[in-house]
């Protein structure tokens, strides 16, 4: 049974790029266009084993999404990896404090992303 990874990004091109990389490595994926949809997807799909999440998105940004998800005890161990164009230390600290497990700056390396996904979904 393939592990399911939620991809949250307002860019359909990035979602498709990430999904292609993960599918090639045997993962299945679900997608959300912003943090609000992403938080709802986590609630509705218990099969989600990991989240790859952008930061700058409309409606609810990625850090707010991590906070919304991680404040619920049932998702305290769900790994959330940030994938963003941002490299600002203040944002990275906020994501870490909210409970994200890592930070990757776009453009991403597919091999690195897949290796991280394998490690985080073990």
């Amino acid at each position, binding site marked *: 049974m393939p592990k399911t990874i939620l991809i949250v990004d*307002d*860019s*359909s*091109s*990035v979602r*498709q*790029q990430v999904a*292609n990389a993960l599918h090639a490595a045997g993962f299945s994926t679900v997608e959300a266009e912003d943090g609000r949809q992403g938080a709802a997807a986590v609630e509705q799909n218990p099969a989600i084993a990991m989240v790859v999440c952008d930061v*700058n*998105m*409309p409606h609810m940004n990625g850090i707010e999404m991590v906070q919304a998800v991680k404040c619920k005890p049932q998702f305290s161990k769900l790994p959330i990896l940030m994938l*963003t*164009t*941002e*490299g*600002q*230390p*203040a944002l*990275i600290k906020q994501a*870490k404090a909210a409970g*994200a*497990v*890592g*930070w*990757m*700056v*776009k*453009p*991403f*390396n597919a091999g*690195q992303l897949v290796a*991280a996904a394998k490690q985080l979904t073990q």
Partner: protein
Amino acid sequence: MDASLDAAVLACDGEAPQAMLPEPAREDPGTAMPQSPEALLDALFIEAFQELLAEYPIEVVPTQALEVTTPAPHVAMRSIVRASGPGLKLESVLLADVDFLAAVHPLSGDELTTSNLQDWAGELNNQLMGRLKTKCLMRDCAFELTVPKLATGSGLRTHLSRSCNYRHHRAMLPEGRMCLSLAATVDPDFVLADSATETAEVMTEGSFSFF
């Protein structure tokens, strides 16, 4: 997808009067970097763009046009990303024909739709401004980015805010053309260091860290 765009796409509306042009870059004889914050921001903007699309043989040239308009009936795509921080406001406008966007899209041609290309116009601008932000962070300048605003159509213009002076650049590939514009509004006391300071805290493009 409209694949019939020709060299007329992204034609200039006309040359700007000298008084309307942005302040020209001034070179310090001791360094290669321009001195005014606006010129330095523009130089970093172009550097970021060339890094972002480094794998493509793109020629980038400045243009003195007051604004750039896509002529009807050609379809083009525009994205706008704004940024603001202490003493600084930026507006990046990316205006590209569909063939340029298709040529630099990470997915192959068979998978591309008009929606993909419009999305990519926004994501390219987002990644471009992200790179500019990284370069500015290394010069002790921070700002926040907006999500891209997208438009598709003919007769799209780059010059939107009447109060802004834009610096326009044409980016050309054999497959298509693009116009890249940055408007920078800085306070008189705004300072941007001429050289970057390497800091381990700022994560650069392609880097990855587990917490």
